[in-house]
C-alpha cells in the first residue's frame, strides 16, 4: 500500500542538497555534512557524550532563527501525502500532488534551510479502510505530523475521525462532501480547496436567475455525489428552483447512455453531472454522441478538473461551465508555477495540486513560526497567519476550518480559441469569497459555536 513510500528521492536532491525535498537519505547526508565538525571536536575535547550533546545544543542556539530541534518531534517534520495514486482520481491529484508537495518543500527550504522535512506517500485506492489504516500507521509508527490531499470524500470522512482521535492535522484538497467541515468537522481537519457548496451555489443561483430553474442530476453513487445532489437540491429549493429528479450510478460506470436518456426524458432545463474524473469524461462524450449538445437542455459539470477537459478534448468539452478555485492561466504568478510544475510532470497542475502546494507551504511556515510541530501550536499559527501565495491571496481559515478564498466560474473555450494544449478555460466571473461560502451562521459544524462563544 505504501507504494511510493519513503524511497522516492527528490528529483532536485542531487543537484543541490540544500534544496532537497528531504527524503531520509538526503536528510542524513545533509546532517552529516553540517554537524560532523562540531560533533567530532566536541568528542575529541571532552570525550564524553554529554559534552557532545551540549555542543549540539549550542550549535542549535547559534543559528538564531532556526527552530530548536528539541521542539520538533524526532527532529523531523514528516508530511504524508495520501491520495488515489493509480485509479480514477489519480490524474487530477495522484502523483501530481506529490510533485506539488515537493515543490512546496523546496521553496520552504529556501526560507528555512535548517528545518528537516520528510515526505511520505501512500495510495488509498479509494478505499476508506485502507486510507484510515495507512494514516493510523503513519501517526502511530512513522511519526507523521501532517497529512494532506486525500481527494475522495468517503476516504476523507474515515481519515477525519482517525486524525481527530490522534490530534493530527489533515489538510484536504479535492474533498467535496460538506460533512467534512460541517457535521463531522474536526479541530484538526482543514478544507483547503472547495466543498460541494462552493461548487454548486454560484452556478445554481446564476442559472436560476436566468430562468433555468428545473434541474436533473446524474451523480456518482458515493458520499461525494450524494452530498452534492442534496446540497444542490437544498439551494434550489431556497431560491425557488426545482429538482426534476436524480439518478445515481455506481462509481466507475462506463456507459451513461441510459442515464442520459433518463435525463432527456425528465424535461428538466438543466442537466447537472456530479461525478467528475473519467466518469464525467465518458458521460460528456456520450452526451454529444446522443445529440444532446444540440438539444435545448443545458449541461453543467458540477465538478470538473482541468485534466478532465484535456482528456475530453475541447471539441467535446467546449462551452461547459464549472467552478474552480484555481487555474494555472490566471496571472503571471500562477503561470510561473504552472510552467515549473510542467517541467517536472509534463502536464499543467490542477486546482487540487496547487492546493496541496499551498497547504504544505503554509503548514511548514506555521511550524517555523510556532517553533514546534505540536499540533495545537501549529494550528494556532495556521489560523493567525494569512495564506499568501499564488493559490490564495490573504486568505484565512475560518471557524469551521475552511480556507476562505475566491472562486472562478469558468467556461471551456471553443476549439479555435485554444492556443496551447492546456489553455482551456476562460474566466466568466470571479466569485468573491464573501458569496462562495455557506454562511457560518448556517454551519452544522460544532466548532463554530465554541469559536464564536470564545470571542
Amino acid at each position, binding site marked *: 500500500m505504501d507504494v511510493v513510500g519513503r524511497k522516492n528521492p527528490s528529483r532536485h536532491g542531487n543537484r543541490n542538497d540544500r534544496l532537497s525535498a528531504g527524503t531520509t537519505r538526503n536528510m542524513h547526508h545533509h546532517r552529516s555534512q553540517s554537524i560532523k565538525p562540531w560533533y567530532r571536536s566536541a568528542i575529541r575535547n571532552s570525550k564524553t557524550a554529554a559534552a557532545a550533546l551540549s555542543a549540539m545544543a549550542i550549535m542549535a542556539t547559534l543559528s538564531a532563527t532556526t527552530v530548536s530541534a528539541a521542539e520538533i518531534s524526532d527532529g523531523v517534520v514528516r508530511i504524508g501525502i495520501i491520495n488515489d495514486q493509480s*485509479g480514477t482520481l489519480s490524474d*487530477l491529484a495522484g502523483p501530481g500532488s506529490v510533485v506539488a508537495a515537493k515543490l512546496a518543500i523546496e521553496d520552504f527550504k529556501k526560507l528555512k534551510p535548517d528545518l528537516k522535512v520528510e515526505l511520505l506517500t501512500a495510495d488509498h485506492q479509494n478505499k476508506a479502510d485502507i486510507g484510515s489504516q495507512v494514516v493510523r500507521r503513519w501517526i502511530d509508527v512513522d511519526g507523521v505530523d501532517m497529512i494532506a490531499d486525500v481527494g475522495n470524500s468517503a476516504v476523507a470522512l474515515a481519515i477525519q475521525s482517525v486524525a481527530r482521535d490522534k490530534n493530527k492535522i489533515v489538510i484536504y484538497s479535492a474533498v467535496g462532501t460538506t460533512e467534512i467541515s460541517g457535521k463531522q468537522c474536526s479541530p484538526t481537519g482543514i478544507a483547503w480547496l472547495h466543498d460541494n457548496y462552493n461548487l454548486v451555489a454560484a452556478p445554481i443561483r446564476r442559472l436560476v436567475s436566468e430562468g433555468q430553474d428545473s434541474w436533473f442530476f446524474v451523480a456518482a453513487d458515493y458520499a461525494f455525489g450524494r452530498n452534492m445532489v442534496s446540497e444542490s437540491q437544498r439551494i434550489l429549493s431556497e431560491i425557488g428552483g426545482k429538482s426534476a429528479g436524480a439518478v445515481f*450510478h455506481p462509481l466507475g460506470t462506463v456507459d451513461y447512455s*441510459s442515464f442520459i436518456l*433518463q435525463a432527456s*426524458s425528465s424535461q428538466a432545463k438543466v442537466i447537472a453531472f456530479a461525478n467528475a474524473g473519467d466518469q464525467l469524461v*465518458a458521460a460528456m462524450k456520450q452526451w454529444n454522441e446522443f445529440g444532446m449538445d444540440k438539444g435545448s437542455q443545458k449541461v453543467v459539470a458540477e465538478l470538473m478538473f482541468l*485534466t*478532465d477537459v484535456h*482528456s475530453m478534448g475541447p471539441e467535446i468539452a467546449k462551452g461547459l461551465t464549472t467552478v474552480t478555485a484555481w487555474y494555472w492561466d490566471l496571472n503571471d504568478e500562477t503561470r510561473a508555477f504552472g510552467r515549473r510544475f510542467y517541467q517536472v510532470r509534463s502536464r499543467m497542475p490542477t486546482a487540487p495540486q496547487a492546493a496541496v502546494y499551498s497547504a504544505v507551504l503554509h503548514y511548514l511556515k506555521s511550524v517555523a513560526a510556532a517553533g514546534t510541530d505540536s499540533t495545537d501550536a501549529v494550528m494556532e499559527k495556521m489560523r493567525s497567519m494569512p495564506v499568501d501565495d499564488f493559490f490564495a491571496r490573504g486568505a484565512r481559515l475560518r471557524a469551521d476550518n475552511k480556507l476562505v478564498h475566491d472562486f472562478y466560474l469558468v467556461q471551456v473555450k471553443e476549439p479555435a480559441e485554444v492556443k496551447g494544449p492546456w489553455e482551456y478555460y476562460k474566466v466568466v466571473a470571479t466569485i468573491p469569497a464573501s458569496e462562495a461560502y455557506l454562511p457560518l451562521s448556517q454551519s452544522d459544524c460544532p466548532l463554530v459555536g465554541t469559536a464564536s462563544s470564545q470571542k
Partner: protein
Amino acid sequence: MSHLFGIPPQALFGQLLLGLINGSFYALLSLGLAVIFGMLNVVNMAHGALYMVGAFVAWLLLTNAGVGYWGALVLASLVVGLVGLVLERTMLRRLYKVDHLYGLLLTFGLALIFEGAFRHQYGVSGQPYPIPDLLKGGTNLGFMYLPTYRGWVVVASLLVCLGTWYAIERTKLGAYLRAATENPTLVQAFGINVPVMVSLTYGFGVALAGLAGVLAAPIYQVSPLMGSNIIIVVFAVVVIGGMGSILGAIVTGLGLGLLEGLTKVFYPEASNIVVFVIMAVVLMVKPAGLFGREK
C-alpha cells in the same frame, strides 16, 4: 395504459435498445473468451487488457500515423492477434500440461503488466478518439435518438459473432479444431498441425478482443483502465452462458445487456451487480451454465 412499471413505454423501448447495444459488446468480448476456453481450456484473464491494447493501438495509429478508424479496425485487430500469438508461443504453451489455474494466473499477471505499463505511460483519464465521419450523427426513432455509430456497433458485433459461430460449428476447419480439442494426438496423426492451429485459435480469440477495443474507442475513452472495468462482467457472461459455449456467450451477452439496461432504469445503484446476482443464481441451479454441457 400510458405507463409501464411507472415509466412511459417509449422510454422503456429506448432503454431496451440501449441494453441491446451494450449486450452486443458483451457478446463480442465473451465470444473471444469462449473460443479460447472452449478450444484451449485457458481462462484468459488477459482478455480485458488486450481489449484495452486494441483501443490504444487504434489511438496510436490515428495520432502518430494518421491511420483512421477503418484502417485501425483491421490493423489493431491484427496487432493484438500477433501479440496473442507471441504470448501463446512463448509462455502459455508451457502451461497446457498443468492445471487450468496456472494459465489463469499467467494471463492475470500479463493483464496487470499491460495495464500498469499503459497507465504509467498515459495516465488514467484516457485519450479522446473521434467517431469516424461516415458514422457521425444519428436518427430520431421517435422514442429515442439512436446515434449511427451505436447502430453500427450492434450490426458489426452480431455479424462477427454469427460468423465465428458458423466457422467453428459448421465448417471443416471448425470441425478439425473441435476434434483437436477432444483428442489432439489422433488429429495430429491425420496430418494436421495441431500446435499451429492452437496458436492461431488463441491469436484469433484475442484479435476479437482487439476488434472490440477499436469498436469501443469512439464510445468510451481510450483508457488503460477500460479493460479491467469490463472484464469481470464479461467473465460472468461466459460463466452464465456455460464456459466454452459459443452460442451461450452470444445469447447471454445480449440478454444480460438487456437486463442491465432495465436495472439502470429501475434501480441504477445496482446496475453493476445485477449480472453477478444472475451468475450466482445460475451457478446454484445449473452449475455448467445455461448452454454448457456437464463434463
